[in-house]
């Protein structure tokens, strides 16, 4: 029982981070039907932003977090503007390949920048470490609490915006039909840019939170993390916001339990679940079967 609770805490802690990152995949897919392969690299950019900003005297967890959200968000908007938007009305494959290109670029450019380079770097300790006894030998620490609380706040905020605000309505309208949305007076390009901004900001936050727990960062950290978050998004039903949360949590929990069972199994567990779910529900757990449009 103690063991179970302990693993569950680990799983949720990892799961909320997957959920944060999965959100960007699902939102961008929802709005322009693009699998943004460069999304994982924004996680890395967030982590590196935090790494540098944390050196500024007086910058604690919150300012570091804000910076680590804004920098990838701005970069993401620039990428959308320069690389994706010109191809928006072209065959979808062109944009997909461009996204892969952008990803390779983002992974390799920083390696050439002397202050970043290809090596692992120790991530600063932004949160004072303390442990609290929960139940029997099960413990929870300040980093886990920070991870879970920060993720839940950001995810709740995002869901609230999408559900209840005028901007959120505009996002959902654009995701359904861009022309019809434009006929409502919605600036479709702005809404798409905003979607990239928000998705990347969450990815940046995910990068910081992940690095608090696994405090070694490098330029390729986004590849594996991004892939797992993408799997989480597909698992939950890509395009579905609650699906990304569910998929992320499920991925995190399954991965932790599988690793505890057999450390080799941990890596593959998420994918096994994915295959099983897709066999029975191709649209993912919370995805809607696509509505064919005329």
């Amino acid at each position, binding site marked *: 029982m103690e063991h179970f609770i302990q693993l569950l805490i680990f799983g949720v802690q990892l799961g909320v981070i997957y959920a944060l990152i999965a959100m960007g995949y699902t939102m961008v897919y929802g709005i322009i039907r693009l699998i943004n392969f460069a999304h994982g690299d924004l996680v890395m950019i967030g982590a590196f932003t935090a790494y540098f900003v944390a050196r500024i005297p007086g910058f604690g967890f919150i300012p570091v977090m804000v910076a680590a959200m804004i920098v990838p968000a701005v970069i993401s908007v620039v990428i959308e503007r320069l690389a994706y938007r010109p191809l928006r009305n072209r065959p979808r494959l062109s944009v997909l390949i461009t996204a892969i290109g952008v990803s390779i670029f983002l992974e390799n450019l920083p390696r050439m920048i002397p202050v970043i380079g290809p090596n692992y770097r120790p991530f600063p300790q932004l949160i004072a470490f303390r442990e609290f006894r929960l139940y029997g030998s099960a413990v929870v620490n300040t980093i886990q609490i920070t991870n879970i609380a920060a993720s839940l706040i950001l995810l709740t905020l995002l869901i609230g915006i999408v559900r209840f605000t*005028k901007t959120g309505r505009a996002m959902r309208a654009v995701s359904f039909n861009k022309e019809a949305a434009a*006929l409502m007076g*919605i600036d479709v390009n702005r809404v798409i840019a905003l979607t990239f901004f928000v998705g990347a900001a969450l990815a940046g936050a995910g990068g910081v939170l992940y690095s608090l727990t696994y405090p070694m960062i490098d330029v390729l950290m986004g590849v594996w993390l991004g892939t797992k978050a993408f799997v989480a998004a597909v698992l939950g039903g890509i395009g579905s916001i609650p699906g990304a949360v569910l998929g992320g949590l499920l991925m995190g929990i399954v991965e932790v339990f599988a690793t505890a069972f057999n450390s080799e199994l941990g890596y593959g567990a998420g994918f096994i679940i994915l295959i099983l779910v897709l066999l029975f529900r191709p649209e993912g757990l919370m995805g809607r079967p696509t509505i064919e449009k005329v």
Partner: protein
Amino acid sequence: MLLEVRDLKVAYGAIEAVRGVSFSVDRQEIVTLIGANGAGKTSILRALSGLADIRGGSIEYAGQELRGARPHEIVRMGISHVPEGRLAFLNLSVHENLLLGAYIRKDKKGIEEDLDKVYGLFPRLRERARQISGTLSGGEQQMLVVGRALMSNCRLLLLDEPSMGLSPILVQEVFGTIVSVCRMGTPVLLVEQNAGMALSIADRGYVLETGRVLLEGESSALAGMEEIRAAYLGE
């Protein structure tokens, strides 16, 4: 004139859909464009809204040139367009669809009043306000997109085949709404294949054929013409 279109040309690649069309809409007027499938009616409306590739001519609206403006800017200038094929946002509730119709407005009180007006006009929408609009019937969706357009408080309403796929009773209802919209002061440019209905409520009409204006005039005069009765009214 509120809207003055001169020698408009629209093409899709090498296909010339509209080949030099001129027409106008004045304040307080219902003007209809009628013509067979493929005549270019939808292309004209899409050009007005900035959605089609304009190859020539000019579109003057309230003294401003619309050519080159982006769709959302045109909406902000006061033109509301109900596109062909009733594009309701099926992933949003009825209420949210109506609110999106008022997307460009800031006057909260006016929006509330207009919501009431639309719900009064289409009581069925009020009953289904919280329902996802994907669950509505075709006729209800058509009411929704017309109601949504009314929420924009526009100065010119463009309607593309609002009667398509509706039962005769619903057609009556929708056309009745169009007349009352115009009476309240909003001019309407109505595109229809249902020429008889369109001419019965419009002040003036233009008959299109393969991208050109074949005939124009007062609706009553058009409805009385032999060739129109034969070709478009099925007599």
